[in-house]
């Protein structure tokens, strides 16, 4: 029997482990893990849990690292390997620390605990049903169990408060599966119903902690268990206090992996869909538009249902694009005229139908949208096309759907590629913003010079300072998480971290809004400032890739420099720290009147003496609200 390609991937990983090369092979491991099954990922996690993060960093100093502290009620050591494997899938390196069973109250409740001392980025507090049933007396009934549930939930809410006061990390909680071996100990249905109600109210309280606390994320285990993953193995629970199965912990780790990825600015932004066999059944090339399956009939209904899911994703800020091997005209005709299509032309930022290799089309698409290739997720039913994209464009996440359209949705959503901590108003209008952008590109093509184009674009820019409680906080946080190219230092901030920063009297945050003749760009940038005495420092400067190179950054920087001078500053410093993607802004300060005052290999500091500040570019209509909401500077 010939080994499957996936098995050979696992054996490559094993070879790497045996040869002691896991650390030096770390960058390649991301691609090795891309297509392992859930079971194989558990094995891969076993191997990777032996990896010494310090050794990986010695070999590859640029690898992004997350400190992940694991605590909870039961034995959780199997989770460390799964977390390591899931983070490695996203090119991240996990530095895990596992507390002994039952220590979560002490770990989270004591600000001096050894857990907080590790300066975690993510804290996984894994809760399980035994934290309730270990506490109830015998005989138990729904009422005394309900009291235990309420008490536990109150303790956890208190721990969440303490957590937020102590660290700017993210706390991950989870709901508790209700097990049949517990519920069935009550022999009457009325009591079972009362137990179930009290249990689910407890879970609802956990979920609400994730709504109300900016630093808390609650992962609901119910949908994961409903996929058919056993919640517990009574033997492991009884004998080793491992109250959740390694399989469920591995599935949970996948959710955590996506959460970690979204924290580190690697959000996926575009869903690129094949058409024939993916969005509709049959081949448009071989059939007329009437011949494709998109409604009616078993398969037609399945494709119809899948299109509804795509539309649902699109409504939340995921940019949709189609890339198909077809002639463009019949494809357009289907999107415009087919009576049963859910998705229409206006749902997409680009519909590309031609006979070029798909990887070339993906490269062009990323260029047009001014996004990195690694922000694309590609879906196709063809093994050939999927293999080609994996090979040619390893940064693109590839999802191969099968010949069974009823499974498309499950396949698409099995990995939470578009998971985000929260979405903002900006997300609901993102498709329109990008479509405006493509209209701007066509408009640009009609001019001979860039200057002429810019002067006709009628750009309006507003800069303003924000305070704690400002409605713009979620969007500013999102900009730090999603912006890669025009991000001078690469510092990411969760909303809770941003609120904490705004409480610091020496810090201020400036927002940049822009609009032009094609529409409102919304909140497109942020500048993080610090002011001590006569020195002002720009800790970070961010601008959405949709709007840079139009003079907006020069206009905003000049406004900030003038404001600094008007409030008595004598110099302004600016920092740059290299990341894998911000090379193009490394001379930003030098090009704008700053001189370099310090530098090492990856970072540099620049200084502006405020003697000669550049004027606002003529084509920009700037509204300066920096004075309106500014702070009393400490001098």
């Amino acid at each position, binding site marked *: 029997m010939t080994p499957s390609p996936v098995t050979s991937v696992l054996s490559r990983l094993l070879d790497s482990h045996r040869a002691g090369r896991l650390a030096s092979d770390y960058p390649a491991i991301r691609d090795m893990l891309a297509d392992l099954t859930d079971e194989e990922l558990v094995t891969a996690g076993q191997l990777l849990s032996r990896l010494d993060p310090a050794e990986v960093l010695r070999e590859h100093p640029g690898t992004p690292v997350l400190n992940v502290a694991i605590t909870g009620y039961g034995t959780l050591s199997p989770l460390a390997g799964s977390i390591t494997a899931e983070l490695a899938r996203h090119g991240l390196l996990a530095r895990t620390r596992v507390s002994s069973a039952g220590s979560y109250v002490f770990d989270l409740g004591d600000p001096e605990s050894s857990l907080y001392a590790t300066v975690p980025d993510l804290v996984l507090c894994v809760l399980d049903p035994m934290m309730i049933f270990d506490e109830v007396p015998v005989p138990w009934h729904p009422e005394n169990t309900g009291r235990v549930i309420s008490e536990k939930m109150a303790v956890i809410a208190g721990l969440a408060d303490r957590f937020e006061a102590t660290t700017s990390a993210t706390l991950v909680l989870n709901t508790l599966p209700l097990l049949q071996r517990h519920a069935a100990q009550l022999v009457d249905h009325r009591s079972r119903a009362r137990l179930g109600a009290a249990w689910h109210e407890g879970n609802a309280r956990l979920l609400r902690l994730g709504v109300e606390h900016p630093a808390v994320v609650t992962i609901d285990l119910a949908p994961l268990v409903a996929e058919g993953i056993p919640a517990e193995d009574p033997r492991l629970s009884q004998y*080793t206090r491992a109250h959740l199965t390694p399989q469920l912990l591995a599935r949970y780790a996948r959710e955590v992996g996506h959460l970690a990825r979204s924290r580190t600015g690697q959000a996926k932004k575009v869903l690129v869909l094949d058409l024939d066999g993916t969005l509709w059944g049959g081949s448009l090339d071989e059939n007329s538009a009437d011949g494709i399956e998109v409604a009616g009939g078993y398969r037609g209904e399945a494709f119809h249902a899948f299109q509804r899911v795509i539309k649902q994703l699109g409504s939340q800020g995921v940019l949709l694009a189609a890339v198909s091997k077809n002639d463009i005209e019949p494809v357009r005709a289907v999107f415009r005229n087919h009576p049963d299509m859910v998705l229409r032309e206006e749902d997409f930022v680009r519909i590309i139908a031609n006979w070029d290799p798909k990887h070339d089309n993906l490269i062009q698409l990323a260029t047009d949208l001014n996004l990195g290739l690694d922000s694309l997720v590609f879906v196709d039913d063809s093994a050939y096309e999927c293999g080609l994209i994996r090979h040619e464009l390893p940064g693109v996440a590839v999802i191969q759907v099968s010949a069974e359209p009823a499974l498309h949705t499950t396949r698409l959503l099995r990995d939470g590629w578009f998971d985000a901590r929260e979405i903002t108003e900006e997300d609901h209008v993102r498709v329109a913003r990008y479509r405006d952008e493509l209209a701007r590109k066509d408009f640009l093509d009609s001019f001979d010079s860039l200057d002429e184009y810019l002067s006709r674009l009628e750009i309006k820019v507003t800069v303003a300072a924000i305070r704690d409680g400002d409605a713009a906080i979620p969007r500013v946080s999102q900009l730090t998480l999603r912006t890669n190219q025009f991000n001078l230092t690469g510092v990411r901030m969760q909303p809770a971290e941003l609120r904490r920063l705004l409480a610091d009297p020496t810090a201020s945050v400036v927002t940049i809004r822009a609009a032009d003749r094609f529409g409102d760009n919304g909140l497109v940038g942020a500048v993080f400032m610090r002011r001590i005495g006569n020195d002002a420092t720009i800790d970070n400067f961010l601008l959405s890739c949709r709007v840079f190179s139009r003079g907006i950054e020069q206009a905003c920087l000049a406004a900030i420099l003038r404001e600094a001078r008007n409030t008595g500053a004598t110099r302004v410093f600016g920092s740059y720290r290299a990341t894998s993607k911000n090379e193009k802004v490394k001379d930003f300060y030098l090009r704008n009147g700053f001189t370099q005052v310090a530098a090492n290999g990856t970072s540099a500091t620049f200084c502006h003496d405020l003697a000669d500040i550049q004027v606002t570019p003529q084509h920009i209509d700037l509204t300066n609200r920096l004075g309106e909401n500014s702070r009393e500077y400490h001098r």
Partner: protein
Amino acid sequence: MNTIDDFLAILRDELGLQVSTQHAGLKLDQVTDWDSVHLLSLLTILERRTGHSIQLAKMLEAATLEEIYAAAVAA
């Protein structure tokens, strides 16, 4: 899984442990990289391979790899 060598191969291939016949009789704390956590994964792996239910309590009481193997194959 028919022999202890098959069992050792599973430890090598699925858990990445560097073990051979000479380690079979050693106390577990003398086996390089052995961790009691491995038993949790082993239970799933061995039940999949042997197709029968294993008595975990017996495996937990085992002091050597040989004894774990014996517990796993005892029907």
